[in-house]
Every structure is written in C-alpha cells, then in structure tokens.
C-alpha cells in the first residue's frame, strides 16, 4: 500500500453534508474489473453537464462551471474539505479509488461513514476528522484565501494552515502505523497464521457446522 507521512496541498471546499458514494462514483463505472481509471469520473453527475458512461472520452465532455472542482482556483487540489457523514451509502472501494486517482491525498470533514472511512486507509488516502467548528473555520479560510493550502503531518497528527492555526486529529495507532509505513496488511495478518489455525481447530470442536 502507498504510504502517507506528510502532505502539503491546495484545499478544495465541497460544502455539502451526507455526500454519498453514488455521488462520488456513479454505479455505471462500477462495472470495471480494474482498480484504476476512476479519477475522470469522480463526482461525474455534478462535474459534467452531460451523463457519463464507461468508454466515453471524458476530455471531450462539457464541464459544469458551477461545480467547485471545476473552478480555476481549485485546480490541482489535493485536500478535500467537506461536511459531515462523507462517504455514506455503499461499500464500493471505487469511491476512495476515484478520489485518489483524481489527485486527492487527504479528506477533512467533521465525520465519515464507517465503511468509506475504513476503505480510505486501505489505499493510503487519509480521512481526517476535525470538529464542526474547526471545519467551519477551514471553510471560511479556504473561501477567503486564494490558493489556500493545508499541511498535514500524520506522525504529529496535525493539520495546519501554514503560518497560522494548527489542529490536532485522532487516528487509531494501527491505522497510523500502516499508513506511515505503507504496510501490506494481509502480510501482517498472515504473521498470525498459527493463531488463526488454532482458533479454527477450537471452533470446529464447538461449532462443527460452520466448517461443513
């Protein structure tokens, strides 16, 4: 997995609550059997004026000028600032894939949906939870400051406006270590193979029907 240690990047403000995974990457793009190529269809229905389908040349489609990611001042953004319950809905990992392949490295919001939050960590995309008040402040600062960047330091668990406010965030230790080191989580679990086998043997005695 791609490691995440520190990142400084342009912030794009997506001022909506409950952004669901159908909005992040619509279902027609889930038919792909690949893990890549989702970036051009991130937020497809909001981003383009027409309806997108797989196989269409996205570079020829007309962009919706009112959508925040299409505005010149947010081009090249790598940090997404948004509202509560981001990523609600389906379990599609295509959602973090699309965000990451678009260029985002981190997402800052007051809360995330559980499955989406978990999926981000599996891909080196860092979801950061700050308080409603802190997120409000960052929205105001982003709108007020052309080219506002955020510096994110995972080791110190800090989000900062360079030269100004800094906010501490929480992250579970195992997630933090996995991201900092870019660990292969499956490989780590397989280090416990003996324990898994012992567990199975005990379980098989108690509940044999599970294994039949």
């Amino acid at each position, binding site marked *: 997995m791609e490691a995440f240690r520190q990142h400084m990047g342009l912030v794009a403000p997506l*001022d*909506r*609550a*409950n952004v*669901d995974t*159908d*909005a992040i990457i*619509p*279902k*027609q793009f*889930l*038919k*792909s*059997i*690949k*893990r890549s190529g989702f970036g051009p269809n991130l937020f497809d*229905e909001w981003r383009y004026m027409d*309806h997108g389908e*797989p*196989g269409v040349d996205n570079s020829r489609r007309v962009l919706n000028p009112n959508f925040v990611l299409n505005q010149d001042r947010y081009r090249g953004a790598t940090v997404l600032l948004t*509202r*509560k*319950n981001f990523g*609600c*809905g*389906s*379990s*599609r*990992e295509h959602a*973090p894939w699309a965000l990451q392949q678009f260029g985002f490295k981190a997402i800052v919001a007051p*809360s995330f*949906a*559980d*499955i989406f939050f*978990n*999926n981000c960590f*599996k*891909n080196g995309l860092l979801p950061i939870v700050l308080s409603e008040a802190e997120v409000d402040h960052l929205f105001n600062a982003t709108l007020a400051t052309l080219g506002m960047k955020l510096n994110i330091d995972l080791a110190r668990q800090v989000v900062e406006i360079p030269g100004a406010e800094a906010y501490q965030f929480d992250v*579970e*230790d*195992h997630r933090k270590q996995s991201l900092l080191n870019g660990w292969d*989580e*499956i490989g*780590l*679990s*397989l280090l*416990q*193979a003996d*324990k*898994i086998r012992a*567990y*199975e043997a005990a*379980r098989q005695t*108690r*509940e*044999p*029907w*599970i*294994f*039949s």
Partner: protein
Amino acid sequence: MTQISASAASCTLYDKLWNAHRVHDEPDGTALIYIDRHLVHEVTSPQAFEGLEIAGRKPWRIHSIVATADHNVPTTGRQAGIADPISRLQVETLDANIEKFGVPVYFGMNDARQGIVHVIGPEQGATLPGMTVVCGDSHTSTHGAFAALAFGIGTSEVEHVMATQCLVTKKSKSLLIRVEGKSGRGVTAKDMVLAIIGKIGTAGGTGHAIEFAGAAIRALSMEGRMTVCNMAIEAGARAGMIGVDEKTIAYLRGRPHAPRENEFEQAAQYWRTLVSDDGAVFDRVVELDASTIKPQVTWGTSPEMVVAIDGAVPEPATESDPVKRDAMERALQYMGLNSGTPIEQIKIDKVFIGSCTNSRIEDLRAAAGVVKGRHIAANVKLAMVVPGSGLVKRQAESEGLDKIFVAAGFEWREPGCSMCLGMNDDKLSPGERCASTSNRNFEGRQGAGGRTHLVSPEMAAAAAIAGRFADVRQVL
C-alpha cells in the same frame, strides 16, 4: 456508560459475537476477527481475486465463500445473455474466478437458485446464528436478523478475508433500538426502519453496532427482521442484529446449508444463547413506540428525509441548521417538489417492487394482496416486480402471485438487484418519479436524474393503483 466485558455476567448479543470471533488482540484495541461466511458478487470481487493472484496467495478457506451474480444481471430475456459488453465481462470474470479458485458454492446467472446475495444467503441456510458474515456490499447488515455479526466491506478487505479468513477491526460502540408496542394494520418492517432512520438520522448509528429489540421487533417474521437489519447501514451502522428466538430456528430448519438432524438440535441449543443478557449495558439506547408509526414515504435524497403518508413535503425555512437547510433545498429542487405539498398528491411514473430490502416472498404476498383485482393507474408507465431469488420467484408462481401482478398491469421479472441501483438496463429516466421498495433515494441512484421515494411493498402497490402516493391503510 461502560462496555460490559466478556467475563462480566451480562453481555450484549454484540459482545457475545465479538468475543467468540477474536483470534488475536492488538495493544491499541484492534483485533483480528475470524470470518465464518464470505458472500461474493461480481461487482466488488474482481480486483480482490486479481490481488490474490498477483500476490501469489491462495484462498484460506474456499468453503466459506458463497457466490452469485446479482447486480448486473438482466431481469428479462436472460436466455440471450447480457447485452451490455461491460456488464457481461464483469459477470464472466466472476464465472472465471469461481472456476479458477475452485469456489464450490456458486449460483451463476442461469442457476435456478440465483438471486440477490442477501436474499439467497439466508434462503440457503448459508447464514446462521453466531456467524460472522461479510460481503463487499453494505447491505450485508441484512444477515444480522439471524443473530450474526454481519457487515459490508470494501474490496481490499474482500481480498484480506480471502487470504487470511480474518479482518483487522476495532469493536464498535453498541446501540440498542427498542421498538415496543404493536404496529397498526398496513404498517410494516419497512415503515418501522424508515421511522427509526427519520428519528436518528443517516449518521445516527455511525460507529455503532445496532441491536433491534422490543415487542414490535419480536412480532416481525424473519423476512421483516431482514428488512429492518438491511437498512441499519442507512442509519449509519455497519451492523444491525436481532437476538435468536424460535422464529429464527424454525426458519433455518431444513435449509440446504443448515446443519441437519442431531447437529441441528445441538446448534439450536447454542443459538438460543445468542441474545443480549438481562441487564446488559449498551452505550446508547433509543426507544420507539410502534403504535405511533404510520406508513412512511421519503420525500428527499437521503433516507432520513422521510415523513408519514398523511404528512406534507417539509419547509426548509423551519430548519435552523444551515447545512441541513441547504441540503433540504437542494433535495426539493432535485426531487421537483414544493414545500407544503401533501404526500398523497405526489404523482408517480414508475413502481419498483424488489431489492435486498423488500423482495422476499412475504413482501410479494403483501403487495399482491393490495393489487389483487385492481389495475395500475393510467399515468404509471412501468410497474415491475423483481423477486429476490429464483426460489422466491418459483414460490410466488406456485401461489399464483405472478398472475395477480400481471393482471394488475405489473411486469413480472427475473431475480436480481435491478432498479435498486440500475447497473443493468432497469433504470429511471431523468425526471421520472418512482415509488420504490429499495433502500436508497440518493441523487441518480435509480438512474441519472431519477427521483426515488422509498416505501414498503404495500405502499408501492397502493401507489401503483392510485398513480400517486396513497395511504394503504384505506385500501386494505
């Protein structure tokens, strides 16, 4: 409030399930949890199978997998195969992976037992009490109706489970939702869970495992309980669950993958312990009175935007939270609705009865009961019934339900996810309004620009007949 530990006298059902599956504990509170049942479908598995192959890993316990093709499959003319080449490739990729990795239990598109993964798991007895059940699909919470710890995962975790039979996860907080009292006539499990979501919000259960309990939950059939647990994710909770009782055990007896004879009795004895103990402490408790719940209809683009059938489209100006107010205004615009419009005056274009929420035999019986001897309204362009599985379809046909639906002007289709999310050809066109028994009313969910109103099967049937939302209690 503190969590009750394993050794304490009183455990919640969730505590019991969690403790029974811990393989290894990490110092930060995360654990390696053993996974008993892995349900697999074509959309979220190809990259996982590929990852396994690239890493040179073998599936840990191939017999834990039960697979089917459900999201992309057509609901008409199936003999001709899948017309869309991209959908076809995805289903063929699943077929090939099943073959290559030697998955023994696969209900492919043309198997008589094929269906929506969350319908066939319980139907086959592949979902059993005391199991951990995962699937690359958020509606895996459905299986919690059998006192299983069941939750949706992403594709990386699908690969993780295939390779290790385990997941790295942290225990959630516990939320008890107790529904006491007796539901009125025409008020279903769907109305109950929509009312719950309306009360706690779509993020109300985030970070929690929900246990549904109380007299009104006990009174539900297993089908109804699956409907309630199915939508736990729409309340933000990855897992929803209900303790075992004699209905649970009766449902499972004789199912193909359930234990048999003496082993079944031995299993049932253990399963009966899978309830929260008296005095078990939950992190949060929410209570509802079923007798106050009316048939529900969503009006917006989030399942929490829901009102009773005798209500009206709400007024954003009365909302004090600016983010919520903005979302309400956006939803009204997307849905093409005006504040103050009575729900019963909203006309519909299409009706969808189906999905992992409401496509089981009981749902079809209930809807057929409403449409019997009636006909869909002239303004309804399409009304379709999509059974949850081939076996549900066959059962319904043996009861003559298909004839009732067809006589009423409905289309009777082949099983699959269908217009719940429109990955196949079953979609809404821009601006079309649908009374749907599915689980999500997000923008574009049933087709770009489509407008979804979530309702029970009875309410969808009543809407089809009236051509607008109608109070099923006045029809029954």
